[in-house]
């Protein structure tokens, strides 16, 4: 008779529990806005209850129908999109999409946006009152029409004002998804921290473009689009780490090119306490569940009993 193998992480296995931005998660793996629809599209591919949480498509006060095609194009290890923030609007979300989400067994964050300051506040207030919504994620990568189309999220002052106004009317956890199209990501995160945001999601897509040399035309109808996928992971890691290193006291949800459990672990080391899987949901629609398992396996293999031990433990000294 041989002795039973000793499980260093304990019989229960490692704890993957995460606390981020005012929400307790079963595990730190979520799915990112715009890559997971309203959840139901993936129902039957894997149990959504295996996720830490999901973030819905961005919701605006009224429904929007989006941009002309072509809206997406593949690039080297990535893709560009210019969907145009198409969504069902607050009322459509509340009446048609939310009933399923209430039963899906995972935390639900609703991504939201407006095209004016008042729309943001109105949209956040209405969504924040809905039963079954665990938190809100503010998308600040929309053009501010009154400010000449510059994204709301690019100027720390504008962003801070917007966060403060939304905070006043939203009692639920409020996260802000930062744009990487900036020269100072820490200033943006600071504006969020100082104005009452509970967490920052880092990063949204990076503005880019692609050209068809044969037709001499842009590959997207809107010329510019947002780059996502593994191509952007190094930039996302850098920004997560910069924010973590600045010790702003605001938790970070890491996003950008995560394809595996090891990718997720890199984000935890850089300082993220949760992560979101985005474009990978298109490449392999069951991958978010696999990534949860791979994170757990990493913890087992490295004798980590609690995932929270990993967060922000990047070794930078020789």
């Amino acid at each position, binding site marked *: 008779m041989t002795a039973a193998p000793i499980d260093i992480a304990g019989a229960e296995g490692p704890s993957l529990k995460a606390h981020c931005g005012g929400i307790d998660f079963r595990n730190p793996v979520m799915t990112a806005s*715009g*890559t*997971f*629809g*309203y959840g*139901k*599209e*993936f*129902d*039957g*591919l894997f149990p959504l209850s295996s996720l830490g949480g999901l973030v819905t498509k961005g919701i*605006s006060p*009224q*429904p*929007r*129908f*989006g*941009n*002309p*095609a*072509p*809206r*997406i*194009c*593949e690039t*080297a*290890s*990535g*893709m560009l*999109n210019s*969907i145009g923030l*198409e969504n*069902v*609007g607050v*009322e*459509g979300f509340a*009446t*048609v*999409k939310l009933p*399923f989400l209430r039963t899906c067994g995972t935390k639900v964050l609703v991504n939201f946006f407006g095209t004016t300051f008042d729309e943001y506040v109105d949209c956040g207030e209405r969504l924040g009152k809905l039963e079954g919504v665990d938190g809100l994620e503010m998308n600040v990568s929309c053009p501010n029409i009154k400010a000449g189309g510059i994204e709301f999220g690019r100027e720390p002052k504008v962003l801070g004002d917007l966060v403060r106004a939304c905070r006043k009317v939203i009692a639920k956890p409020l996260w802000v998804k930062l744009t990487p199209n900036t020269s100072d990501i820490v200033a943006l995160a600071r504006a969020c921290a100082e104005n009452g945001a509970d967490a920052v999601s880092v990063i949204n897509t990076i503005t880019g473009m692609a050209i068809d040399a044969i037709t001499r035309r842009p590959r997207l109808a809107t010329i510019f689009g947002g780059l996502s*996928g*593994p191509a952007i992971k190094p930039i996302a890691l850098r920004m997560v780490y910069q924010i973590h290193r600045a010790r702003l006291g605001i938790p970070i949800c890491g996003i950008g090119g995560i*394809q595996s459990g090891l990718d997720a672990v890199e984000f935890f080391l850089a300082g993220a306490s949760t992560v979101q899987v985005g*474009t990978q*949901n*298109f*490449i*392999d*629609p*069951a991958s978010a569940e696999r990534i949860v398992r791979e994170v757990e396996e990493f913890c087992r293999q490295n004798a980590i009993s609690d995932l929270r031990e990993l967060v922000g433990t990047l070794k930078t000294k020789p």
Partner: protein
Amino acid sequence: MAQNGSKGVKESPKRKMRYFEARIIENRALGNGYFVLRMGGCDSLAQSRPGQFIMLRGDWGRDPLLPRPVSLLSVAPDGRADLLAKAIGRGTRLLEMASPGTRVAVLGPLGNAFPEPTPGSLDLLVAGGVGLPPLFMQAELASRRGMVDRCEIIYGGRTSRDLVLLGEMRGMGLSTCLATEDGSVGRRGRVTAELEARIDHHLAANRHQKLRVFACGPREMLWAVARIAEPHAIECFLSMEEQMACGIGVCLGCAIPARSRPFRYACSDGPVFLASDLVIPPTAGHPAEGTP
């Protein structure tokens, strides 16, 4: 653009799609870049209908990144599924080189289908080049149900080398009307000229006969087909292609301008659409263009 209220918002229907690993069991080159991939282990595609598609991805690392939408050519109860493709881009070139035993990830069946064959209609199946698969599958369905005389295929390409699987289609007993731009086989000119001739022929033979047109091929061809069918009040169904990342209505990449709402989605509303619901550009696809 914004619209008021939640009117028209529908919960996504429950799908019968499955996500699974299949194995390539045969890769048959047809010349000129065309090839038929036969996959095994596709039992969950056995009930697929003509027009439906799959998202397919090989073990390609990170480049190309996205799975490829591919129309089904034929499915069988034993788990076999055939695809027809032409090596054009990087994804299809990789598939062209895939050897038997290669494992691929499959999500499907996806999308809607052409209407079923019925004894009361004569269906004109219009295929342009690599747009053949859903029409081939429709003919196969009609043949299996003993209604192959209720359809005919009108198939066009640049040259005779772009017309493939003719033996298989004739073997079903399917009437084949061909057109090539260089005149190397069939009518010299575009497939749309042949379609006009076939419509005239059928209406001359029986003015009261119910005709339907089902088409798949290049976008300009589809618009031309719709413009030919419309004045005759012939019901016209088009299978549309558009760039897509997910195949399940999530990425919203495959938007197609429509009449019933600003956009419809090739993956989740289609790929088969009634031509009358699509916004057909007024200047596009003159049917006589390129014909003698």
